[in-house]
């Protein structure tokens, strides 16, 4: 059924538009003056001024891998984050931990762990899905690089950014 949209009937002074145009001009002029005199201030001057102090507790910045109290890499290469990642930014190649390694009982770790930060959308699903509490979204938001390759964070870079995180559930070592 066709829906008839009733147009408002304009009076003659409305039809010549000039009063409303004048009104509009006054509004914009008011904004102009208020901003010019500094009474309105919205913009933050990045990078001199930053949000860092005001970032919310659960701000979602760059994802990174963490190690635990005993410097064990928490990631066991279960690839759930790779699976859940909506833009498919994560690539993991798993490997078996050699038997002579201190953490051989964990059996598995990532040989390569790459996050393509050009693809990453900072959704935080990787952190949410991780069964080992190994990946966390940090508060870093200024991720830049001079090449595409540089924007792919490899394992070393991810651990460098993530650092050590204490106080998490320890499933694999005797700290419990």
């Amino acid at each position, binding site marked *: 059924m066709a829906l008839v949209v009733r147009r408002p009937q304009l009076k003659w002074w409305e039809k010549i538009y000039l009063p409303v*145009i004048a009104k509009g*001009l006054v509004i*914009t*002029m008011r*904004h102009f003056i208020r*901003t010019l005199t500094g009474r309105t201030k*919205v*913009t933050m001057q990045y990078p001199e001024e930053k949000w860092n102090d005001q970032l919310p507790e659960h701000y979602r910045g760059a994802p990174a891998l963490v190690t635990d109290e005993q410097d064990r890499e928490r990631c066991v290469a279960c690839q759930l984050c790779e699976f859940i990642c909506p833009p498919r930014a994560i690539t993991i190649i798993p490997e078996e931990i050699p038997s002579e390694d201190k953490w051989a009982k964990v059996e598995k770790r990532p040989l390569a762990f790459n996050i393509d930060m050009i693809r990453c959308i900072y959704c935080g699903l990787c952190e949410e899905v991780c069964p080992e509490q190994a990946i966390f979204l940090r508060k870093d938001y200024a991720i830049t690089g001079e090449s595409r390759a540089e924007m792919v964070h490899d394992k070393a870079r991810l651990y460098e950014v993530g650092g050590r995180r204490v106080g998490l559930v320890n499933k694999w070592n005797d700290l419990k």
Partner: protein
Amino acid sequence: MDFIALAISAVKIVGLVFLVIMPMVAYAVWAERRVSALIQDRVGPNRVGFQGLLQPVADGLKFILKEDFTPKNVRTGYYWLAPALTMVPALLTCAVLPFGSQLFGEPMVIANLNAGPLFIFAIASLSVYGIVLAGWASNSKYPFLGGVRSTSQMISYEISLGLSIIPVLMILGDLNLGRMVQDQSVNGWLMLPLWGDRFSLKGLLLLVPVVISFVVFTVSMFAETNRLPFDLPECETELVAGYHTEYSSMKFALFFLGEYAAMIIGSGLAVTLFFGGWSLPFGWLSWDGKADIPWWQGLIHMATFFGKVVVFILFFIWVRWSLPRFRFDQLMRLGWVFFFEIAVINIILTAGIMMLVK
């Protein structure tokens, strides 16, 4: 014409175009960005130089250094010609604009023609070719639509533009822009008839058609220069970037320059016709064009002219960020159904006043 006159002409051309118009274009862009930002509670470009004053230089550098990319399927010759066709007419029109009174005995106008407004309209109407050619030569849907719109829009509004200044010519009884300004300098501006001959019943009565004339002229000028609220040839929401979608680098910059140059010239013409050009109000330091005036007075006149132009440009910008874009049918309706009629009636009104009131 002897060599010296030629040299003086060249100096005037170079001086006006490259030392005045071009920097003005550049800073009009800067002003546009800053003013629009302030209107929208933002900051605008403020990084390059003090308050971002070097931003236009940076922009220019960027345009020069960018890859001059020509798409594969364009009609190359026309494609290259179009930006020049937009830029050149805009600059040509400034030949007849009196941007000052007199400096060291030399009239401050490049070509003191006796048919100033006609020259301007003749040349300005060429700029439509730039846009149409750009739209057509790009061989792409959006530019084509932009070009088509532009053609109808500019042709339509040229009529009301031309008709709207006829009352002015009738009142001033002259076609030489220099003398028109001198007249206003002595006898009162058309929009401010508060001294000299115009401070009379007839002058004040004539203010009615002059104001109508000014409104029609200004609105038509917006349409002619493709400025918001009439920027339909390039409206982003519908046509990506309209006729210059396929242009990049310096060719795009030429379109940009053309638009702003047209805006400056339009402002200059409005100032010349309605606000007494280089003259100061209330007959201060007025000049009737007969005796030579000292150089400092000439400088003051020049500054006055450009000051008025700057105010006009700011008005252009202000309007742009206040009003929404018209729909195309509304635009055509406004041009043909209202402004055309109003302009014609206005001519009759002016003639009536001039005939009846002595």
